[in-house]
């Protein structure tokens, strides 16, 4: 059944022998509810389907009353007796559908990574798949996930809470690609001719019909008007195919003769008036202004050997039945235009031709509102439009308002580029802080200004000092610069963007980066948990702190295990990480002390 819920009269029994309380049983996708008739009775029920494990029911044809027995996960059961077996069947089908869906979901999840949901987290199956997909795509993310969620340091919800952007972005990429129209002109239906019986058979599929409606709007309109009021669909298409056949024979006179008799046939034979009006509109909107400069190159008339010379004297007279002649070129152009416009109606979705026609009409209406501003007015409007267009074409550049300035896009760099620059801080702090500013004495501002002015007048009087630089000093400067440049080159490599990391062996580098991302993640969660207001946060912070001490130890071990020439560089890199961890652990201990000091005496229940 298509509805999402079922309501039936039933009696709720606690056991088979129990006479049961009459009431109404209501089932929907998440739970079942039972309301007894007697409002004062206490046997109201509301049970989630999550806790329903299985169902048993009495068979029709047996002498037993129609009963259904729903067993839940704790071993209890709910028994309902229905008025009739048909009610029982309806409810039974519904329940079995839900249970089946539930088992499918749980089994598909269980077959993937272990233990991904918590019972208190309501996740749809789609979100679950999305998370698993993300984990499979990014191995770094997978490592983090395994380490933290698998190691019981963070819960699933916390891990993904920081990554909402990833989840959101993926869910919007769901649009299916629709197949467009074929470039083959299937609307040019060719019949099968049977020479013996002189029968001509046309076969129309829904796809062909959709194309016909798209390419020939007057046929579309005729269909909507005539079927099923004036004629059946079969008759309509018969007439249409007859018109096509007549056109194919290129017998204009025969076509005219038949058109004179049958009104509807005439519709199909003469030119499409809707298309004609559209084309006329388009012609009116053509830009009448002339680009003189560009046109000069297009003058084919006065250059010899260019273009085709047209001699109007050889043209045939127009026959009075010109109306019924249709050219291949017109059809081809129209088909191409329709294909390029794209498909807006899905044939599979519609049940019959009428529905297809209506869907197409609806989509066209929508398009018309968007694409053209269909201003059909008097000619006055048209000329106004034309003037407006001309004004736009001859716009004067200097009278334009200023264009909005282009914005530079925000470029957020990968944090890893800055990884190795942290060692500068380590170097700075390791140097002794004696290079502080000498705050010896102070001149007042006035005196300072005066001294500057003195200096200026001194230079004016004496000229720029000569020599500008002492040769020994210059040599020293050169040597110093050369030395520093070459030492940096030695330490950091020739490439200015090459980092210290690249000079370490790959295994060490990978481990370092992994530790770093773990530490970032831990610190992120750690600092966001403060200030601690609930016991949950407290437990989380304790877990995080243990993990941080663990990583600290791992860093120390790694440093000790390295060869001596690498050890110094790695310790420089590792130092800021350790500093960050130290700061966090210190803060945690301080906070703990403060708490225990504050609540030294009375401690209300549950308050941490």
């Amino acid at each position, binding site marked *: 059944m298509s509805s999402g819920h079922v309501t039936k009269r039933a009696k709720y029994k606690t056991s088979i022998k129990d006479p049961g309380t009459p009431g109404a049983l209501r089932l929907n996708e998440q739970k079942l509810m039972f309301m007894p008739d007697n409002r004062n009775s206490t046997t109201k029920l509301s049970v989630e389907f999550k806790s329903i494990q299985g169902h048993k029911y009495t068979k029709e044809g047996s002498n037993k009353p129609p009963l259904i027995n729903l067993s839940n996960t704790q071993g209890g059961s709910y028994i309902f007796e229905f008025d009739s077996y048909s009610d029982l069947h309806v409810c039974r089908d519904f329940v079995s559908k839900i249970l089946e869906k539930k088992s499918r979901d749980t089994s598909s999840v269980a077959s993937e990574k272990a233990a991904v949901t918590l019972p208190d987290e309501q996740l749809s199956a789609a979100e679950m798949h999305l998370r698993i997909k993300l984990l499979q795509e990014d191995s770094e993310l997978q490592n983090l996930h395994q380490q933290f969620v698998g190691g019981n340091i963070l819960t699933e919800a916390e891990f993904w809470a920081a990554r909402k952007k990833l989840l959101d972005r993926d869910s919007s990429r769901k649009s299916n690609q629709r197949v467009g129209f074929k470039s083959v002109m299937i609307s040019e239906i060719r019949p099968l001719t049977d020479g013996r019986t002189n029968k001509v058979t046309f076969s129309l599929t829904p796809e062909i019909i959709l194309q016909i409606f798209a390419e020939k709007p007057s046929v579309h309109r005729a269909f909507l008007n005539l079927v099923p009021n004036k004629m059946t669909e079969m008759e309509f298409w018969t007439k249409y195919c007859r018109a096509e056949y007549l056109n194919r024979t290129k017998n204009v006179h025969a076509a005219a003769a038949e058109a004179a008799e049958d009104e509807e046939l005439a519709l199909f034979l003469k030119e499409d008036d809707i298309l004609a009006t559209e084309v006329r509109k388009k012609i009116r909107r053509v830009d009448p202004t002339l680009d003189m400069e560009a046109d000069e190159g297009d003058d084919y008339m006065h250059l010899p050997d260019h273009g085709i010379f047209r001699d109007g004297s050889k043209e045939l007279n127009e026959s009075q039945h010109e109306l019924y002649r249709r050219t291949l070129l017109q059809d081809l152009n129209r088909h191409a235009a329709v294909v390029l416009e794209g498909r807006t109606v899905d044939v599979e979705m519609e049940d019959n031709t009428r529905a297809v026609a209506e869907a197409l009409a609806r989509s066209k209406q929508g398009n018309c509102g968007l694409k053209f501003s269909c201003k059909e007015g008097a000619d006055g409007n048209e000329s106004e439009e034309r003037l407006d267009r001309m004004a736009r074409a001859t716009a004067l550049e200097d009278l334009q308002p200023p264009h909005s300035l282009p914005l530079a896009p925000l470029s957020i760099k990968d944090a890893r580029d800055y990884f190795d620059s942290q060692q500068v*801080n380590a*170097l700075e702090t390791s140097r002794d802080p004696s290079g502080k500013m000498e705050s010896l004495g102070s001149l007042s501002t006035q005196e300072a200004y005066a*001294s500057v002015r003195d200096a200026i007048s001194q230079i004016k009087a004496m000229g720029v000092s000569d020599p500008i630089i002492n040769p020994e000093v210059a040599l020293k*400067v050169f040597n110093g610069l050369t030395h520093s440049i070459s030492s940096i080159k030695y330490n950091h490599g020739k490439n200015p963007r090459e980092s210290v990391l690249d000079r370490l062996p790959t295994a060490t580098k990978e481990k370092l980066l992994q530790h770093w991302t773990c530490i970032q993640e831990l610190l992120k969660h750690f600092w966001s948990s403060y200030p601690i207001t609930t016991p949950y946060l407290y437990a989380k912070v304790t877990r995080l702190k243990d993990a941080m001490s663990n990583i600290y130890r791992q860093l120390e071990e790694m440093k000790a295990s390295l060869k001596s020439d690498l050890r110094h560089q790695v310790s420089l890199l590792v130092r800021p990480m350790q500093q960050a961890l130290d700061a966090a652990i210190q803060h945690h201990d301080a906070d703990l002390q403060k708490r225990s000091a504050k609540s030294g005496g009375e401690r209300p229940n549950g308050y941490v």
Partner: protein
Amino acid sequence: MSVDGRGYPDYIVILVLVCDYWIPFHAKMRNPTKPFPTTLSRMLAFLNAILTLNQLNQVVVIATGCNSCDYIYDSSKATNQSFGNGRMPTLCATLLQNLEEFMTRDEQLGKGEAEERIACSLLSGSLSMALCYIQRVFRSGSLHPQPRVPIDSCYIGAQNSAFLQQASYITSGVHHKPQQLDGLFQYLLTIFATDLHSRNFLQLPKPVGVDFRASCFCHKSTIDMSYICSVCLSIFCTRHKKCSTWGSVFAKGAADLKLMKDHGNGTDLRQG
């Protein structure tokens, strides 16, 4: 500090020199050799040298004082009028004259303020002026490329400037702190006079690493742990009652939660 600009070909230099003569700095120094006049004369020689390297080179000098910033010299506008006694090139004479006038004006602006006012550097203002000048030069030409403006910084002083380091790194300029002040001219000519074309094959000194740490908004000191406004991400080293960038009042902290159960206006001061 200097700002280099790219001329139309790569080997032409449009140098916009931003000189930060922060008066309180000089007020605190008591160095008897008084480096200021010598620094100034070396700078003048350096500017002259730049102009000599190529006929199309241009030099603009912007001075940052205590209370104002202003253009001191523009080589594209200089007239051939010579000041004084002809003992020095026009550039120096004009520049010194303008500098003197600028100092007088700056002092006038500063009159009436309290002596103990905390002075802050107007470097950002003069950098903006420099960049606007460069943009104007490029827009007035027939080409409209986006100029790539590397910012070179030469730091004279005891400490290190994280801001200048970061600025030079991000704009792929050169940052250097001369070890010997009396060799300043040599440093300037060797490192900072190079045009962009030559920088492709010259090895210029690179700092060991750049200090990317953030600075707090209240004291401008580099910090590792700070309080951050959850809306505008301004960084503070101590707990504040309201954000100094946009004035919103912060919510009460956890310590005060026991006293008043009020969760504030939706803005929060987080620690991290």
